[in-house]
């Protein structure tokens, strides 16, 4: 096993990890503000992936173009989901919220199964075969573009929360729910907006993911788990933590796939999760709850 091979695998894992990170960012933003754990997160991502595949196979629309209408549709979907279903549940106990989203997840997985069947689907564009040579390193063009898109989307979200008035209002809700109500913020609408934004992250991540892997309806629960692992490792509610966790998990999966066997790669992620939960339960970049 040469150094070049390991370096190439690590770089591929890093780039995939950025897309993972964007997916997890959606979960983290939703949890950080609404305080609801979206157990249907990976399932929502498979919807985006199938949407990208469908647009590609029907009209040949490139996933980088398709991500715009899909992201808009997901914003509306996420907004409506929060406004209609989840808002009445924000004061209910955790297990009740969990059941609600598990039911949503079951419906999504099986509706996709009905619509697309159990077979794996993918998109095939010519730049998936291209790569850039940097000395001994080979970087897939599709993977690089996907990672860049993920970074740009994440940066846009950072900027929105940091600089816009609406973003500040949402952060106020996250900091102090009661205080936000007292100063007259429409908390329920802001929650719905947040869920919409989290869904946009999922939509973009899903469109990028179809360039890297095949999609089938049963992938949903796997991505949900992956998003949880990433967000806990990085720190629940921390935006930078989600990206950092994504990169760590992406790289560790790639390296584990190389050195152990590909089927055991998520074992390393779960081991990482347990270690983080024990030594730093708030996550690498999370703020201490106490």
């Amino acid at each position, binding site marked *: 096993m040469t150094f070049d091979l390991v370096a190439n695998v690590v770089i591929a894992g890093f780039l995939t990890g950025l897309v993972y990170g964007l997916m997890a960012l959606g979960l983290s933003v939703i949890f950080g503000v609404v305080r609801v754990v979206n157990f249907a997160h990976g399932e929502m991502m498979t919807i985006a992936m199938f949407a990208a595949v469908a647009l590609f196979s029907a009209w040949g629309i490139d996933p980088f173009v398709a991500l715009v209408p899909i992201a808009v549709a997901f914003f509306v979907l996420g907004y409506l989901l929060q406004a209609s279903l989840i808002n009445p549940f924000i004061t209910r106990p955790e297990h*009740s919220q969990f059941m609600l989203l598990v*039911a949503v997840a079951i419906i999504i997985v099986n509706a996709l199964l009905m619509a697309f069947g159990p077979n794996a689907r993918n998109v095939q564009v010519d730049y998936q075969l291209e790569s850039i040579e940097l000395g001994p390193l080979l970087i897939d063009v599709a993977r690089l573009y996907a990672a860049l898109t993920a970074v740009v989307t994440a940066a846009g979200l950072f900027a929105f929360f940091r600089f816009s008035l609406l973003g500040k209002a949402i952060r106020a809700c996250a900091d102090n729910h009661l205080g936000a109500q007292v100063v007259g913020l429409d908390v329920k609408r802001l929650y719905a907006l947040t869920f919409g934004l989290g869904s946009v992250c999922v939509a973009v991540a899903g469109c990028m993911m179809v360039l890297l892997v095949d999609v089938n309806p049963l992938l949903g629960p796997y991505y949900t788990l992956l998003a949880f692992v990433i967000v806990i490792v990085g720190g629940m509610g921390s935006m930078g933590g989600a990206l950092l966790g994504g990169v760590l998990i992406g790289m560790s999966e790639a390296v584990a796939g190389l050195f152990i066997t590909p089927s055991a790669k998520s074992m390393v992620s779960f081991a990482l999760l347990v270690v983080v939960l024990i030594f730093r339960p708030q996550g690498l970049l999370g703020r201490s709850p106490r």
Partner: protein
Amino acid sequence: MMLPPSASPGLASALNKRGVALLAVLALVLVALPWFASSYVLSLAIVILYFAYTGQAWNVMMGFCGQLSLGHSLYVGVGGYAAAALFVHFGIGPWLGVWAAMGACMAFGAVIGALAFRFGIGGVYFALLTIAFAEFTRIGFDHWEWLGASGGFFLPVAQREFNDPFNLRGSGRMFYYLLLALDVLAFAFCTWLLRTRIGYYWQAIREDPEAAQALGVNTFRYKMLAVLISSAMTSLAGVFFAFYYNNLFPEQIFNMGRSIEIILGPIIGGLGTLFGPILGAAMLTVLADGITEALRMVGLEIPGVKQVFYGLCLLAVVIYLPQGIWPALAKRLGIGPRDGHRQ
């Protein structure tokens, strides 16, 4: 986490006279069932009893003590594999193997509990830790050649002509009675548990862990006890599963979907109640099967349709009956507790 008070432990206060009479009729029907039911109905009844049992076991941890486990398939799998491995590789029968299964599951439970409760991991984080352990173990078993790895582990198929209860080889009827006995024992055990000091400590921890600690309850010890009892109970379901179905696949038995199946019953039926897990298991199994039948009659047999309906029903129950079905039903039937408590 706030749950309405359900402090009325014990059968006597859980049901009034009318309720006890109804329960007696139900018991008679259950005992007589294998003698007039078709093999199809019997296999359905076995599924119901199975999920009633696993639900009861899970309820000890979440319903009584407030610790949300989403990884109970871990204990089913480890229990099943332990007893099956002893049987296949060493010829040790299930009545001895069950103790090994219990021990193995309690060891897993002890590790998870000790890690979580020592380091103050609670709520959602605890739930995710239990998922992580179940997934971790699944991948481990997927690569464990001695136990068939991902290709599955098989028990020699039973001779259905005669029953051999010592090795749990026999007819569906034998398995039905075994499971019925297990359910009755679990019910009695849980009823008793709720009446002991342990049960009251658990409920105190469930309602407010900090207040319980302040009052001198050793929350670490009693949460550990809940995990150990729940995992030991669940291991028996695993042993049953292995010997009834004669095959074990890591991909199936440790699946997160299996963990969710286990917890649906008690939550739909009524969390923390004694009858909830049983009622929930019965309703969900009959519902799933009814949907399959109804769709077959209409000629709609696309894969996934059944689960979509199932999900919609689940959604409806979660939205409109947040306390579960049992409390509402008990009130409607007039068999609820005399003192107005839940259960």
